[in-house]
């Protein structure tokens, strides 16, 4: 990160609350780099978040207007902000438990409306802050605090969910793909359309320790090896990334 991009960061809130190895930091870094490369007007940007680790990516780290809301409702608050003042650029950045589990209703309706906001899901497949419970994106078979014998339920594929709800601009990246992620964030905040970015951030501490991915480098290698850019075929045994 270039030093002039530090204007987008509240330095006084560091050291960050994120655990060592948390992929949310990579998402935050990509977001700040995107703002920096665009020399984005930080006084015309509102970042809205909900509850959980993902709710801390934008607020308090970003030095812009931030709204840290109730659990699952970030998109609903963002709807009010954007509808009441369409000149503001509105980004929702939160986690999978927040946006896709308790708040799933708002996510599909924002996609249905094609509300001109950017929704970024820092998807680490688990409730991290509360100690590692299964979320709606925890893979089948994965171990969590609440699924010690392996998750019996199928997860949401957020790309398919949001596409199915009517969105056009749907992307997925992992923490390994920070550069592509940054480019898509730039595209999203320069547009006036609904964008959804599913970002697999990885949680070495709560998810990794129970699923043989405790080492953050191992988690990143896992993302690198399992990922494949989407072209024509959606492969269910891969992490499909790119534009859908």
């Amino acid at each position, binding site marked *: 990160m270039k030093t002039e991009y530090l204007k987008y960061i509240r330095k006084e809130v560091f050291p960050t609350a994120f655990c060592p190895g948390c992929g949310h930091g990579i998402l935050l870094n990509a977001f700040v780099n995107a703002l920096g490369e665009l020399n984005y007007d930080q006084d*015309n940007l509102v970042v809205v978040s909900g509850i959980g680790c993902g709710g801390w990516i934008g607020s308090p780290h970003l030095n812009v207007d931030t709204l840290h809301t*109730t659990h699952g409702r970030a998109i609903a608050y963002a709807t*009010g902000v954007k509808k*009441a003042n369409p000149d503001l650029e509105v980004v929702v950045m939160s986690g999978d438990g927040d946006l896709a589990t308790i708040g799933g209703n708002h996510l599909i309706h924002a996609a249905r409306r094609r509300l001109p906001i950017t929704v970024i899901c820092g998807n680490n497949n688990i409730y991290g802050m509360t100690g590692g419970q299964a979320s709606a994106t925890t893979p089948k078979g994965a171990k969590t605090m609440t699924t010690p014998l392996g998750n019996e339920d199928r997860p949401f594929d957020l790309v398919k969910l949001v596409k199915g709800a009517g969105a056009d601009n749907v992307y997925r990246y992992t923490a390994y793909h920070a550069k592509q992620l940054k480019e898509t964030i730039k595209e999203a905040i320069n547009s006036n359309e609904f964008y959804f970015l599913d970002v697999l951030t990885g949680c070495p501490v709560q998810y990794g320790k129970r699923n043989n991915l405790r080492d953050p480098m191992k988690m990143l290698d896992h993302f690198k090896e399992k990922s494949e850019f989407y072209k024509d075929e959606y492969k269910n045994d891969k992490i499909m990334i790119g534009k859908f």
Partner: protein
Amino acid sequence: MATEINKVPLKEGKYFMQGDEACARGAIAAGCTFFAGYPITPASEIMETIVERFNDLDRTFVQMEDEIGAMGAVIGASWTGAKSMTATSGPGMSLKMENLGLGIMTETPAVVVDVQRTGPSTGQATRTAQGDLMQARWGTHGEHEMIAISPWGVEEIYYETIRAFNLAEKYRTPVIVLLEEATGHLREVVNVKKEVEVYNRKKGNDTPPFGGFEPLERVPSMPSFGDGERLLVTGSTHDPNGYRKTQDREVQEKLVDHLRLKISENLDDILEYEEYYTDDMDKLIISFGFAARAGLQAVKRARNNGEKVGMLRLKTVWPMPVNKIKELGEKVKKVVVPEMNLGQLRREVERFVKCQVVGVNRADGEVIEPEEIINKI
């Protein structure tokens, strides 16, 4: 000064209208520019009027995917500088409670209308009740003050909705307007004035954006998103600049004190009530909303029979005018509390007066008749 005169879009004159419609038109007169709603009986007519008028006035309406989202959108919109509102009934009110608490915590002006119907749960959508009195006060978790007002007729709904906006803007807090199905669907004449006095929030940055600084009762100024203040708005415990303090005992204590004191230190401005025949009485009726209409009829009939009965009608139900209740309670030997619930106001009154307190109660979806009150006097 933040008080201004708003020209009312509706031409001045007498209008025959429904309570729900009067509520919407009062909101428009107060300068409400954002409404988020969700369909629910018996409150939908508020949304219906808003949709029709906002279309002409170029203001923003959004039908949300649920009641929770409507309350969230209202708070989000308020931070862009919009006077914002939502309206619902019991089941929706229950759903809004968490976000209402965030409105209190983030000191966000908003008006929330609850057109009460019977409960619990789905209850009876088209039958009237006053069963949400305590929910209005304590429905959201944690220590807080609440402002809730309860008009008793259609014209008063129009003007009290304007007052609700003024209080919300002045004290930077959500304000609840408690209607009942009976008042919401009542049709009466409203005298619409050409202009109304409105209070618009203090903007700018002459104070930190949130309370907790000294003096604690001072209402902070409220910048909007996009003003360049780079606001940290959070439902977590925060210092006056919005920084989260999730472990700090002193910040929590000061913030809660501030949220309470900015209301409890200004009761003279917030409390409104009406007294009838209280100069010369030995029995007192205390009531609110639609039930107070039967209360006043009962007072008049009892007076015709030579009985010395007076009435105190609460327009502001929360905070409650405790000193007034105490003062009047000392003058009488009996207090009668008619309400369309099973004693929510009566239990409050019992805490403040020493004499006998009896209730006149219904929770069967019917209104209280004056005879029922007279029988208890």
